[in-house]
């Protein structure tokens, strides 16, 4: 494959960023916006071409004996450390990166287009588009990374562009602190990622994904020519262990910690709800569809390595399961519609994580992996749809809270229908896309262990409940007084992406996803286990929706009663189980007041005090001996004479004795 298209995929958004960033202030809003849309549109077309070439061309470098291969389009040395340990900037094509290319460019294009309407007339419009381009560049670079360090580089870049976009309304203190929080929390997670990379790369001597995962791939299939037994041996790190776990486990868990930060897994999730301070299209792009699934992508990328360590996979599963449940519960009590969606995102990403955690090659040929990626794909579509829909609502009523909405189905039909489709998809109602992917995840869980399956089914039920609670509270319930300025549907640049994404959400479930994306590249034929998994989960979802309908369709006192009845639990969930307060306590009370301030005090008063003290001692000493230099010649003569006579006396004594 010619490298020109991949290079363009990476360069066009970067160029867009530079052009809009440097020349933006000189451009009109319209020019800047359309430049951004065209740029990302081109990238989208190129990404589609690439993905189609990869999946359908059947060229031997992409597919061999029915097994899809990893293909490195180009790989440019960027920074060499020692021996072969080199950071390269390259372009890796394999099923998941091709999938991600499609997802990112599609959503990004939709968001670019949508923002034309949503951000119209905002101050800093050009800046907004520049940051969007930067984000697209970083995210694309992340998914096509050929080595783990390239991933880390772009990982940091997406973090930065997320920081910039969350803090887009930089004069709003809440936005500033939210962006800061997002950056620092993910940075903390990246610390783990970095240490994990250091351990992994030191012992394996490589950053390359093909080297890291290829040899393991060879266990399952014999196609990969990168088998080096040394790599396999070094992967186990010669049995070295630390605190009871092998170093490989530590490395993998630490790398996963990076993923936990980006994908907002418990306990590093606190930044994501606050990140909703950014413009809504940004939330759709970054905090729902693309960046937050980077953690999932990371685990998927290193999946063969994770397979070598049960413990690491178990850790992922447990974290994912807890997070999924926690986020779903919290989502049931939030008032801000974007926060509901944010918690729903956390919960859905946790689904993907659990799915990866329970995936095993021996269970349906790694069904969980495929399911996870499938869900990533469908979730990106319907969650972006939901966010964009929420954006349209916010645009219409100028408030984030559902208390300001209600009965909107009459005023905003397009938004209503598309939002409903999104809700149905996420709730897992056939034939919408979410049903298929969630079904695969649940089957994978049940196959691994019944407990996981049951747990995740319950979470799926909760999902259906809170999504429809949201839906009813927005579109039904009781109509507040909108005044003479009735809300209305958004202009076409905003509606078009909604309709498009809704269509995708309707049909995406029928894509034979297993044919394209599996953990070892061999096709997997999806079959739905109707009796064991699908029917029960549909029943659960329908029951949950029915409950939501019962409680929220019309204004009634039931929700308040429920809230009162559950009391402390409801309050705790409403306050997100006090995670922010705990973090506040740790960062402010402990780190700031008990570490930083004492250190600064110590520095000024002890260390610097010692230095000043030395100077003080020297000064005291000189003041003490200064009278010796009295300026009185006669006393000098006495001293001199004393010395001279002493010398004479000593001489005399020596001579006489």
């Amino acid at each position, binding site marked *: 494959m010619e490298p020109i298209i991949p290079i363009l995929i990476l360069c066009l958004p970067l160029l867009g960023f530079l052009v809009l960033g440097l020349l933006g202030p000189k451009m009109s809003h319209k020019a800047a916006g359309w430049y951004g849309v065209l740029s990302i549109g081109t990238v989208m077309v190129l990404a589609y071409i690439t993905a189609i070439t990869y999946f359908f061309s059947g060229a031997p470098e992409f597919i061999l004996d029915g097994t899809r291969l990893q293909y490195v389009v180009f790989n440019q040395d960027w920074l060499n450390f020692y021996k072969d340990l080199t950071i390269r900037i390259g372009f890796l094509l394999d099923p998941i990166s091709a999938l991600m290319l499609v997802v990112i460019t599609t959503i990004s294009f939709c968001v670019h287009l949508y923002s034309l309407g949503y951000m119209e007339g905002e101050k800093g419009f050009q800046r907004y588009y520049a940051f969007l381009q930067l984000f697209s560049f970083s995210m694309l670079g992340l998914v096509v990374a050929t080595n783990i360090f390239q991933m880390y580089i772009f990982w940091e870049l997406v973090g930065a562009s997320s920081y910039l976009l969350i803090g887009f309304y930089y004069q709003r203190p809440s936005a500033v602190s939210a962006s800061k929080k997002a950056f620092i929390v993910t940075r903390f997670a990246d610390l783990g990622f970095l240490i994990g990379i250091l351990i992994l790369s030191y012992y394996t001597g490589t950053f390359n994904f093909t080297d890291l995962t290829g040899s393991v791939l060879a266990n399952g299939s014999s196609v990969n020519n990168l088998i080096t037994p040394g790599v396999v041996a070094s992967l186990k790190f010669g049995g070295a262990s630390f605190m009871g776990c092998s170093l490989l486990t530590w490395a993998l868990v630490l790398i996963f910690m990076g993923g936990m930060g980006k994908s907002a897994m418990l306990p590093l999730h606190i930044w994501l709800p606050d990140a909703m301070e950014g413009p809504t299209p940004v939330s759709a792009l970054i905090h729902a569809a693309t960046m937050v699934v980077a953690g999932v992508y990371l685990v998927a990328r290193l999946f063969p390595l994770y397979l070598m360590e049960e413990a690491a996979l178990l850790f992922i599963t447990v974290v994912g399961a807890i997070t999924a449940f926690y986020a779903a519960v919290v989502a049931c009590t939030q008032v801000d519609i974007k926060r509901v969606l944010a918690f729903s995102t956390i919960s859905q990403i946790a689904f993907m994580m659990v799915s990866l955690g329970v995936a095993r090659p021996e269970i349906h040929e790694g069904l969980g992996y495929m399911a996870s990626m499938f869900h990533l794909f469908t979730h990106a579509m319907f969650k972006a749809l939901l966010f964009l829909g929420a954006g349209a609502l916010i645009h219409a009523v100028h408030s984030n809270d559902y208390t300001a909405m209600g009965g909107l189905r009459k005023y905003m039909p397009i938004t209503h229908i598309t939002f409903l489709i999104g809700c149905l998809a996420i709730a897992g109602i056939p034939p919408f896309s979410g049903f298929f992917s969630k079904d695969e995840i649940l089957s994978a869980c049940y196959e691994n262990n019944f407990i996981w399956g049951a747990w995740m089914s319950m979470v799926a039920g909760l999902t259906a409940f809170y999504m429809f609670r949201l839906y009813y509270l927005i579109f039904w319930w009781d109509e507040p007084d909108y005044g003479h300025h009735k809300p209305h549907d958004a202009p076409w640049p905003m509606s078009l992406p909604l309709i498009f994404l809704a269509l995708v959400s309707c049909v995406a479930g029928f894509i034979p996803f297993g044919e394209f994306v599996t953990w070892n590249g061999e096709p997997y034929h999806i079959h739905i286990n109707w009796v064991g998994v699908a029917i029960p989960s549909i029943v659960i979802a329908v029951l949950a929706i029915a409950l939501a309908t019962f409680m929220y369709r019309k204004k009634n006192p039931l929700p308040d009663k429920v809230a009162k009845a559950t009391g402390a639990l409801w309050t705790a969930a409403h306050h997100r189980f006090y995670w922010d307060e705990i973090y506040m306590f740790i960062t402010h009370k402990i780190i700031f007041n008990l570490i930083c301030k004492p250190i600064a005090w110590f520095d000024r008063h002890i260390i610097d005090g010692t230095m000043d003290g030395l100077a003080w001692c020297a000064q005291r000493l000189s003041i003490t001996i200064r009278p010796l230099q009295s300026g009185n010649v006669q006393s000098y003569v006495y001293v001199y*004479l004393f010395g001279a*006579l002493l010398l*004479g*006396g000593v*001489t*005399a004594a020596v*001579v006489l004795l």
Partner: protein
Amino acid sequence: MEIMYTIVALAIIIFSILTVTTRKILRSATYLLFTLFAAAIIYFMMDYEFLGGVQIAVYAGGIVVLFVFSILLTTSPGSNSEKLTNRRVWWGILAAVCTAGVTGWALLSRCAEIFATKPAMADYTMQDLGEDMLSTGHGGYLLPFEAISVLLLACIIGAVAVARKR
């Protein structure tokens, strides 16, 4: 000669003591003058006539006059300098006696030549002195001579600078 020596030695001892013990500063200067004359006589006895001449001209003639002038400028005539405290005097005597003791002991015990008698000396004329002063060879003193000249110049400038009215 012996008589001459005795007179000179006694003059030196007596006038030295008087110089430092008298309470009238003008007298002190006068006794100094006598001491300097005595020293000049010693130079003559040593056959260094030029040196003796210089001693009289510069010291007796120049320096003591300077002293007298400055004394007259800075003190009212006839006034005594303040009485010295006993402590000060005793410390001074102690220091002087100690110095005398140590030096005298060193002189007597460490030097064999102190009982040497005066040897004969070739004539040393003014011309010889002048040539020595301006020669650069062995026994020539051009460099110190020049150095002294510069020093004197500096002193003149310094004196002018210090004494000049601002």
